[in-house]
């Protein structure tokens, strides 16, 4: 695979819920080993974009390709095969509260039957160590952990199967600035060490600047601007300007002001 073929490629993706058009022709390429961050306000369809790639939602129109393979309309078995390439850190962690932490981390490994339960526990503890959590945490229940620890466990679970592609859904939302930076560092480290392709969505600009090779801004169901974190300050795009400076005044009018 060369730079020519992107790892993930979205072309003219449309998705609507009832009357509400959420994605209105999204075009986006993510190269191998690249870390792309999608920024955009709440409710602009960032999560929907991720879910379309993961196959949790089916777009009405357009194509989604992973490794050059169209994933829309593929059989359930192929879909499961493709999903093995993915790891995802969910916004709320989405840890299984019926299982102890180590089983959460090892869930993907056990589901794919790559190893025995005993080996899985060792790997889980190793992955927990990678995100800076001690082995004792493995035997706790997710509900006993703080928000920051849950995020870290979620991260450990996302990287446990050594996926080729990792999705991060608002990785720093709801964390204090220091913990947010710890998570950012962990994400950077994971991408660097695993050589994985990363696609993140966030509205935290500090986080976006830190983890992104490339930033894309989603507005009104389309990617309206993309560039490197250095370029974003001189984007010349009024929408991007307003977003990164967090101004209430500007071309983006929030529903709340109507």
């Amino acid at each position, binding site marked *: 695979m060369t730079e020519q073929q992107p790892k993930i490629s979205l072309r003219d993706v449309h998705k609507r819920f009832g009357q509400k058009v959420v994605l209105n022709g999204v075009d986006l390429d993510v190269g191998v080993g690249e870390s792309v961050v999608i920024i955009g306000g709440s409710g602009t369809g960032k999560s929907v974009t991720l879910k379309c790639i993961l196959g949790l939602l089916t777009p009405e129109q357009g194509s989604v390709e992973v490794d050059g393979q169209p994933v829309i309309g593929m059989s359930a078995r192929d879909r499961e095969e493709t999903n093995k390439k993915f790891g*995802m850190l969910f916004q709320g962690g989405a840890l299984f509260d019926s299982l102890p932490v180590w089983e959460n981390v090892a869930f993907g490994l056990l589901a794919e039957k790559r190893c025995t339960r005993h080996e899985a526990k060792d790997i889980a503890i190793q992955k927990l160590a990678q995100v800076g959590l001690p082995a004792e945490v493995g035997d706790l229940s997710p509900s006993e952990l703080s928000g920051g620890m849950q995020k870290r466990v979620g991260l450990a679970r996302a990287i446990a199967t050594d996926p080729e592609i990792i999705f991060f859904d608002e990785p720093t939302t709801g964390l204090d600035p220091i913990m947010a930076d710890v998570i950012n560092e962990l994400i950077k480290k994971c991408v660097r060490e695993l050589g994985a392709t990363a696609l993140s969505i966030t509205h935290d600009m500090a986080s976006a600047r830190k983890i992104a090779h490339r930033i894309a801004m989603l507005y009104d169901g389309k990617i309206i601007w993309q560039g490197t974190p250095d370029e974003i300050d001189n984007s010349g795009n009024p929408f991007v300007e307003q977003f990164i400076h967090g101004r209430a005044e500007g071309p983006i009018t929030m529903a709340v002001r109507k």
Partner: protein
Amino acid sequence: MNFFQPIGRIFLGFLGAAGRLTLFAITAISHCFRPPIYPRIILRQMVEIGYFSLPVVGLTTLFTGMVLTLQTYTGFARFSAEGAVANVVVLGMTRELAPVLAGLMVAGRIGAAMAAEIGTMRVTEQIDALTTLSTNPFKYLVAPRLIAGLTMLPLLVLVGDVIGIFGGYLVSVYKLGFNPSLYLKSTYNFLEFMDVFSGLVKAAVFGVLITLMGCYHGYHSRGGAQGVGAATTNAVVSASILILCFDYILTELFFAT
């Protein structure tokens, strides 16, 4: 002018819901037979549905058996037919009361818990997380519960039959002054295999209905705590109504001829 519009909308909505439920049921049942199967989770659900429902079902059937005996006696004493009390109690319990009351109690206990658990998993994205971890939610969440419901409800009802008849025996012997051995003998003489069997088949069907409703409403819940609350209510109400509907249909099928 638009008098028919709401009727049409409600009717179409009903058809849509019935279709969605049927598709859900077919998908869920088909996943029960295709690997991977999760024995550990099936076992856990069996303990949850079977073992932990024993006290509720036991108490329900015990008091039902007792009150049934008391009421039947009052009625039958008016035309000196006290001898038929054992007959009525054993038929009433095995054919009807044990399966239906156990079903309703378990619907309240298990159907609600299932809808709340799966509903919370839905709104906290845990079900999406399952998919990203190469696990089919139907196989992991729904199929084990259906299998556990199907197998555990008949066992619960079997225990409920025994306890209910025993409740009737207690009241007959210690309160109404029946001869113990005579009462047991007439209970035994009136009992046919078909009476118990029909009750157990009903129980199995109810078990599937309860777990199916719990899973369906949980799986399709949306919108946070309120959505989960609504899913829980819907699961219990729809399971209870379906139990009563299917009770009639199954009785008709078994005994109408």
